[in-house]
């Protein structure tokens, strides 16, 4: 218990330090003292005030909740499907969001600030609805991921077909949108993502013992009084809503949902409550640091955030495979 408390306190501290660090880095040259002054409400000038409160604070907060949301969605999917490879992105969510974003970008052109996230969200929901329908028809959980992959390819090809006939600049923008970025986020986006995240966490905490029962197998869970199908469907819908909201505002940020829960299982535990709290803290900190790299690594440009998470994620994935092989 003491070890667990120590770990959670350390992770809480890490999250706090990450958020503070996130406010310090950026292309505008603002010293630590000036950042501190701005946070305390006495900015040296209006430029610093604008940079800190209208650019960096929303970015850090959205990175925090998006990282938390993606990691929690991954953890819940892995536990409810008992598949260590489950990741919200494997259910066609990004492909669906990409299709929505493509249609919005190519048909509306300008004034995309509201239409783009809305279209991406609807696209993601469309994808997950198809996957859920297939899962319901098949009645076999092990084929859920395969259905997700198939839907993902199907929607991806529809997107590429539309892009092929699109205006070249708009096409490029969609492709880069899919790589993910936090540069366009505002405080309103934070409020929306945080609300969905909060509701998801409350439901998960309320049902954490039921989800734990699923880890023992469907039959054992059913014998403990858990309605396995309903619970799994609810969790899948919850993860879909959470991921779709994040993708709508931040674009495609892959591998966070896959990678973070595996780290948490190693250092904190496998049961749902521990996993969700640990994933939230590590996922949030991780995405803040990835965003710091994205905006500071190159002097005159930003790196799309999805490139960094996918690069780190793939290395981590290979590391897990080698480690599992050695253990076996």
């Amino acid at each position, binding site marked *: 218990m003491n070890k667990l408390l120590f770990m959670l306190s350390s992770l809480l501290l890490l999250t706090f330090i990450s958020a503070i660090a996130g406010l310090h880095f*950026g292309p505008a040259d603002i010293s630590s003292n000036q950042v501190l002054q701005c946070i305390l409400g006495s900015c040296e000038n209006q*430029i610093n005030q604008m940079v800190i409160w209208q650019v960096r604070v929303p970015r850090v907060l959205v990175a925090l909740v998006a990282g938390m949301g993606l990691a929690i969605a991954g953890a819940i999917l892995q536990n409810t499907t008992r598949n260590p490879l489950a990741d919200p992105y494997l259910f066609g969510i990004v492909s669906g969001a990409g299709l929505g974003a493509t249609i919005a970008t190519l048909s509306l052109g300008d004034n995309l*600030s509201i239409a783009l996230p809305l279209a991406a969200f609807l696209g993601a929901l469309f994808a997950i609805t198809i996957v859920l329908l297939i899962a319901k028809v098949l009645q076999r959980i092990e084929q859920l991921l395969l259905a997700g992959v198939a839907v993902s390819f199907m929607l991806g090809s529809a997107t590429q077909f539309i892009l092929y006939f699109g205006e070249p600049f708009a096409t490029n923008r969609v492709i880069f949108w899919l790589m993910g970025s936090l540069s*366009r986020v505002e405080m309103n986006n934070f409020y929306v993502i945080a609300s969905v995240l909060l509701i998801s966490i409350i439901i998960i905490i309320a049902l954490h013992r039921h989800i734990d029962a699923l880890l023992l197998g469907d039959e054992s869970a059913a014998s403990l009084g858990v309605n396995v199908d309903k619970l799994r469907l609810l969790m899948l819908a919850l993860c879909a809503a959470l991921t779709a909201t994040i993708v709508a505002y931040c674009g495609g940020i892959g591998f966070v949902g896959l990678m973070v829960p595996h780290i948490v299982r190693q250092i904190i535990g496998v049961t749902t409550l521990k996993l969700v709290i640990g994933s939230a803290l590590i996922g949030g900190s991780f995405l803040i640091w990835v965003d710091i790299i994205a905006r500071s690594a190159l002097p005159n*440009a930003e790196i799309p955030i999805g490139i960094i998470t996918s690069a780190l994620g793939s290395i981590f994935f290979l590391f897990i495979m080698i480690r599992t092989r050695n253990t076996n």
Partner: protein
Amino acid sequence: MTKIIKTLLALSFISLSVFSTFTNATTDKPTIIALSPHIVEMLYDIGAGEQIIGTTSFADYPEQAKSIPVIGNYLRLQIEKVITLQPDYIIAWKSGNPSDDLARLEQLGFTILYSQPNSFADIAKEMREFGQLTGHKTQADKKAQQLLNELEKITSQYQNKTAITAFYELWARPLTTVAQGSWPQQFLNICQAKNPFEQADLPYPQINIEKILLTPVQVIIQPLSVNQTDREGFNWQDWPIIPAVANQQIIQPNADAMHRMSMRSLKELKKLCVSIDETRQWLHKKNALIEH
């Protein structure tokens, strides 16, 4: 002696005051962030280049433009840097800049003007607008008129020439050309070069080489960018069956100059029309020789 010193002192004061008036006049003029290479070129054309305080990647002409701080590229702008620079105006390229970033900047209180030239006449129109905006109205009007006069001259020089069939290679991999609604199509129209793919549904269609083999292409236009490190286009020498390749009629204009909507593109139009006309005359001579 005292008289000379007094005169020198007076002259120094006068030059100092003239210099200070000039400096003030320069600093009084609005500062601008120009969000595309063609806008930067246009502003230098009208004499407002020194007022540019930020731009995007690839703005490398004229030479002075290379020292302008870069604040992003056509996909993403660094909002923080824009805030730090505090420009009076941001001139954006409507179809070539990220609309979400521009919406954000507008929300933050910046004044954004748009550039979207679709023809040479549009360049002249925008030059006049930017001249008014930047305090260089006289030079801008002069340059705009010069552009229109020059365009008129080139158009009338070639309008009665016999059209020859040309293939315009926009990109090599995948092989892509231009059609109606694209910027380079007007170059072909003015120079009397017939584009066999002009009626395609897309402005920049991808073309199968088989289609080109079936078309009697008399000249190939293969613009190459100075920024292209390998300067490698499509390898036409593999297809000697195409008349243009067999006759070595491949023109390689400067892609940057052609595709950036500024005074420079007009100069490139002139050069292209001359090259196409040389091919036309060469073909004419060849045909005359065969008939003879």
